[in-house]
C-alpha cells in the first residue's frame, strides 16, 4: 500500500492514432469511470423523481424544498429571474455534490480528486459568466470594464480574473483531495495490519466519522462554496457592480 496510489492512476493513451506521445492525449480511466457513474446516478435520480412526482408526497416535498432552497439563493443575488442561469447554477451544484460524496459507495473514488475535473468546472463557469456578461451589457462595455477604474489597471484586471478561476478550482480540488487522502490513509495504512486497531477503528466509529465528515459534510460545504462563488461572479457580470 502506498499513498502514491491515489495520485498515479491508470492512463489510456489515444495519441498513437495521430503519432503523438504527448500527455495531453491521455485519458484518466478512474476519473472517466467515476464521472460516468455520477452522471448515471443523476440520470436515474432525475427520471425516478419525474416518475414519482405525481405519485408520492414525500418525493414531492423533497423536490419542492430543494427547488425552494435554490430559488431563495438565486433571488438573493439577482433582481430578475432567468431560467437559463438558474438551471446552470443548480446543475453545477448537483453535479459537484454527487461527485464529492460518491465515495460512500464502495469501490468508487471522487472524480473531484482529479485536478482535470475541477479545473474544467472552473473554466466552464468562467466562460459561461463571461458570455452572460457580454450578452447582458454588450461587447463594448465588457471590454471597457477591463480598463476600469484606470487605464493602467488592465493587466491586474486580467490577472485577477484568471486568478479567480485558479483559486475556485484549486479550492475544490485541495479540500476534496486532502479529505480523501486523510480518510483513505487512516483506513488503509495507519490501522491496517493490526487486527486490534482495525477493530477499534470500526467499533468506535472513528472510520465512520472520518468518512462522514470528509465525505459528506466537507463535500456539501465545498459544493456550496463553489456554487456561491459562481453565482456571485455571474450576478456581478450580468447586472454590474451596483445592481444588487
Amino acid at each position, binding site marked *: 500500500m502506498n499513498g502514491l496510489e491515489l495520485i498515479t492512476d491508470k492512463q489510456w493513451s489515444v495519441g498513437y492514432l495521430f503519432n503523438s506521445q504527448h500527455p495531453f492525449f491521455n485519458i484518466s480511466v478512474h476519473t472517466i469511470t467515476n464521472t460516468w457513474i455520477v452522471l448515471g446516478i443523476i440520470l436515474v435520480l432525475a427520471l425516478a423523481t419525474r416518475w414519482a412526482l405525481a405519485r408520492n408526497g414525500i418525493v414531492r416535498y423533497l423536490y419542492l424544498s430543494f427547488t425552494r432552497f435554490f430559488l431563495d439563493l438565486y433571488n438573493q443575488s439577482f433582481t430578475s429571474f432567468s431560467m437559463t442561469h438558474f438551471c446552470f447554477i443548480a446543475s453545477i451544484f448537483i453535479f459537484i455534490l454527487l461527485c464529492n460524496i460518491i465515495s460512500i459507495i464502495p469501490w468508487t473514488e471522487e472524480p473531484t480528486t482529479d485536478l482535470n475535473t475541477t479545473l474544467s468546472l472552473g473554466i466552464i463557469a468562467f466562460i459561461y459568466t463571461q458570455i452572460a456578461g457580454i450578452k447582458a451589457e454588450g461587447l463594448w462595455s465588457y471590454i471597457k470594464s477591463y480598463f476600469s477604474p484606470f487605464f493602467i489597471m488592465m493587466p491586474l484586471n486580467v490577472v485577477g480574473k484568471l486568478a479567480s478561476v485558479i483559486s475556485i478550482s484549486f479550492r475544490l480540488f485541495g479540500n476534496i483531495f486532502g479529505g480523501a487522502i486523510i480518510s483513505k490513509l487512516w483506513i488503509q495504512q495507519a490501522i491496517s495490519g493490526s487486527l486490534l486497531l482495525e477493530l477499534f477503528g470500526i467499533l468506535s466509529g472513528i472510520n465512520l466519522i472520518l468518512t462522514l465528515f470528509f465525505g459528506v459534510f466537507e463535500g456539501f*460545504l465545498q459544493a456550496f462554496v463553489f456554487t456561491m462563488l459562481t453565482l456571485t461572479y455571474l450576478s456581478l457580470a450580468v447586472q454590474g457592480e451596483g445592481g444588487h
Partner: protein
Amino acid sequence: MTEITGLAHYLTVAFAVGLPAVGVGIGQGWTSTAALDAIDRQPSAKSDIVKVAIFGMALIETAAVMGAFVSMLILYNNWDTPPSYYASLSTIGIAAAISIPGFVLGLVSAMPARAACFTVARQPFFTQKILRFMVLTLSLIQTPVIFGFIVSLIISSQAQEVTTMRDCLRLIASGISIGLGSVGPAIGLGLFARSVCLGLGINRRAYDKIFSFTLISQAIIETPIIFALVISVMLLFVVPPLAEENLIDGIALLSAGLCAGFGTIGAGISSGRTAAAAGTRIAHTPETYSLLAQTSMFAQGLIEASAIYPMIIAFALLFLR
C-alpha cells in the same frame, strides 16, 4: 550529509502541517468562544448562531487540510528512494509556502466568523444573508493559502531535478516569496472582513452597498499577493536552471524572494485597515456610499504603490544584474 538531508526532509513534513494546525486550532477556539458569547447575548437565536459557527469552523479547517495534504505528498513522494541533498533542502521552500500562509490564515479567518456570530445575535431574522456573506468573505480570504498550495505543488515537482545549490536557493526563494508575501494582505483581508460583517449587524439596510463594496475592496487588498505570486512564478519558470554551481547568483535570487515577500506586509495591512474603516462608515451612513468608496479606493491605490517598489527591485535582482 545524510543527517542534514533527513533533518530538512522530515522537519519540512512536520512544519507543513504543524504550523497551520496551530493557527487553525486557535482560530476555531476563538470562533466557538464567540458563538457561546453570542448565544449568551441572544439565547433565542441559538440554532442560527450554531449553524453560522459550524459553517465558519469548517471553512477555517481548509488551511489545515491543505497542509496535511502537502506534508503527506512530501512524505510519500520519496518513500522508496531517499531524496538527494539538494532536493531535500529545496523542500524548505515548500514548508515556507504552505506553513506561513496556513498559520496566518487560520488565525485571520476566525475574525469574520466571530463577527458573523455576533451579527446573527443582533439581527436574528437576517441569518440567511449573513451566512451567505460570511461564506463568501471567508472563502475569498483563503485565496493566499491556495496560492501557497499551488506553488508548493510546483516546487515539489521541480525539486527532483535540482543538482546545484543555486537552484535549491531558487526554489526556497520562490516559497518564501509567496509565504511571506501573503502575511500582510491576509491580515488586511481579515480586518476588512470583520468590519463589514459587524457592519451588517449595525445596519442591515446597507446590505447591498456593503456587498458590492466588499467584492471590489477584497480584490484590491489581494493585489499585493498577486505581486508576490508573480515573483514566485517567475522564479519557478522564467529564471532558467543552471547546470554549473553559482552561489552568488542563488543568493541574489533568495534576496529577490525575500524582497518581494517583505514588501507586501505593510501595504497589505494598511490597505485592509483603510477599507475596514470605510466599510464601517458605509454601514453607519449608506447614503455617502459613492464618496466613501471612491476615497477608500484612491487611498488603497496610493498605499499599494509602496508594494510596487519592492517588486521592481525584485525584478531587477532577477533579471538586470
